[in-house]
């Protein structure tokens, strides 16, 4: 029973079903954060005194843990404030010219859509979309990639439908394009090995994988990062500065201008330790089974469940016909059940599904089948009330 590792769930007596938005934090991560502030809070890389050295050491140790976790080198791991910043870093830094093509998909989170859309407008690039079919799978066709395609940026796992996309197939057909994946929903829930997938870049956030908020990662192949110019300038990202010139620091520090989120990185390192203790494969299996169980139970209730992709993680979207997802969410909140209601930051996908929003439940290691049962019991009550009030469902 992993629930006991998460103080908030006990303190607030909650059934928390919104881990795709953010995960709860285990005690050991909270303790690591407290330990940093209580015992060695200081700035990194420059201080020549013991607590600063300790902080630097722990910060860089966290980088090593992240690198090992996704099978990369420590120098290939850039700390950012989250997936969004990681993707923006690429949109700002990649060398793209008028006429170049960018290929993304219809199931992207706004964070992997808006940066490319705006960049395309500014630089007169062509933005193309891989379509999503009714099952919620991507309809990737090799011919979508042309000689002009410079970037393919797709989500690894859909935050709405839970679809696990076939990244290897996209990499196989990438031609000259760079392949970027948004791992915000995959890295916290399944084994992600950048070498095995063959991607050029991977972006993800700590807070969805038991780590703190405000810290995320951009992985990039070393030879690509060496060539890439930073888009944030300032302290820590330099080697030498004169009034006329600046020599940038080495990879990855040249991308980390300003005081980094040291405590965030340390928290993320601890979160990875926690995941490793349980085993990412066990987490994947646990969440996937809960997802399947939830779909079965929701279908028995007769509510509309969206998507039926070939491979799916523990994210389930549904609607009680005739009720706004936020109203459903508010009603569940009265019973201490947290779910997401709305467009889940994927408005274009909502349009494609022909809805204004959905109710979404998503799972993590602290959830159990009983949580699904309680959700379904309350939804049953809602449906009875709806019927009593004469609203057609």
């Amino acid at each position, binding site marked *: 029973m992993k629930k006991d590792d998460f103080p908030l769930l006990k303190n607030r007596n909650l059934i928390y079903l919104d881990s795709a938005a953010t995960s709860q934090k285990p005690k050991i991560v909270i303790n690591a954060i407290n330990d940093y502030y209580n015992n060695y809070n200081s700035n990194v890389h420059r201080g020549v005194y013991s607590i600063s050295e300790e902080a630097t050491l722990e910060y860089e140790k966290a980088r090593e843990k992240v690198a090992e976790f996704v099978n990369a080198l420590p120098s290939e791991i850039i700390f950012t404030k989250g997936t969004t910043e990681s993707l923006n870093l690429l949109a700002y830094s990649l060398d793209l010219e008028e006429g170049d093509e960018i290929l993304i998909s219809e199931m992207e989170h706004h964070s992997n859509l808006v940066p490319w859309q705006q960049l395309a407008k500014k630089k007169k690039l062509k933005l193309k979309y891989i379509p999503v079919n009714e099952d919620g799978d991507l309809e990737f066709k090799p011919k979508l990639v042309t000689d002009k395609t410079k970037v393919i940026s797709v989500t690894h796992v859909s935050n709405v439908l839970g679809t696990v996309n076939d990244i290897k197939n996209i990499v196989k057909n990438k031609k000259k394009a760079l392949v970027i994946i948004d791992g915000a929903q995959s890295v916290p829930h399944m084994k992600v090995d950048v070498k095995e997938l063959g991607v050029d870049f991977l972006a993800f956030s700590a807070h969805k994988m038991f780590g703190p908020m405000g810290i995320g990662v951009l992985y990039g192949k070393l030879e690509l990062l060496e060539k890439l110019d930073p888009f944030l300038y300032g302290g820590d990202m330099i080697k030498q500065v004169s009034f006329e010139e600046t020599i940038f620091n080495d990879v990855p520090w040249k991308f980390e201008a300003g005081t980094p989120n040291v405590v965030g990185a340390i928290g993320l390192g601890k979160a990875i330790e926690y995941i490793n203790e349980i085993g990412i494969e066990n987490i994947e299996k646990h969440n996937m089974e809960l997802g399947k169980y939830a779909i079965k139970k929701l279908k028995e209730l007769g509510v509309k469940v969206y998507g039926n992709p070939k491979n799916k993680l523990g994210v389930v979207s549904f609607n009680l016909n005739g009720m706004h997802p936020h109203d459903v969410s508010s009603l569940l909140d009265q019973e201490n059940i947290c779910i997401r209601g709305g*467009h889940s930051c994927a408005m274009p996908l909502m349009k494609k599904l022909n809805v204004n929003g959905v109710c979404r439940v998503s799972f993590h290691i602290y959830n159990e089948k009983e949580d699904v049962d309680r959700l379904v019991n*309350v939804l049953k009550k809602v449906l009875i009330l709806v019927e009593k009030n004469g609203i057609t469902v």
Partner: protein
Amino acid sequence: MELLFEELMEHYKEPRNFGSLENFDIKQFDSNPLCGDEVEITCKIDKDKIKEIKFTGEGCAISKSAASILTEYVRGKNLKEVIELSNERFLNLYGFKPSPMRIKCALLALITLKKGVVKYVGRENK
């Protein structure tokens, strides 16, 4: 949960003044990205008073029921009174207290109406 539900549903099920006026002096649209609520209010004005008012739109139960209650309340009211109707006062009239995030839903119709009224008054005073 039952109580919340009854309060929300009463006006959601049968919103008052739902529709739009063909002859209007005020027509104002606004939306709330949180719930994707949309509301369009049309009003007929007579001697600085709201003579007729209707609203259309899609949205959650809170935004719809609030629009229903608001349109009932402001009919016959002076435009000045509408402009001066504070958020707090309207929430009192509305009766049900939404969670902090969802106060936006409850206030959407009021904010939309006020925008329309302010524009109308500006036009009239030119």
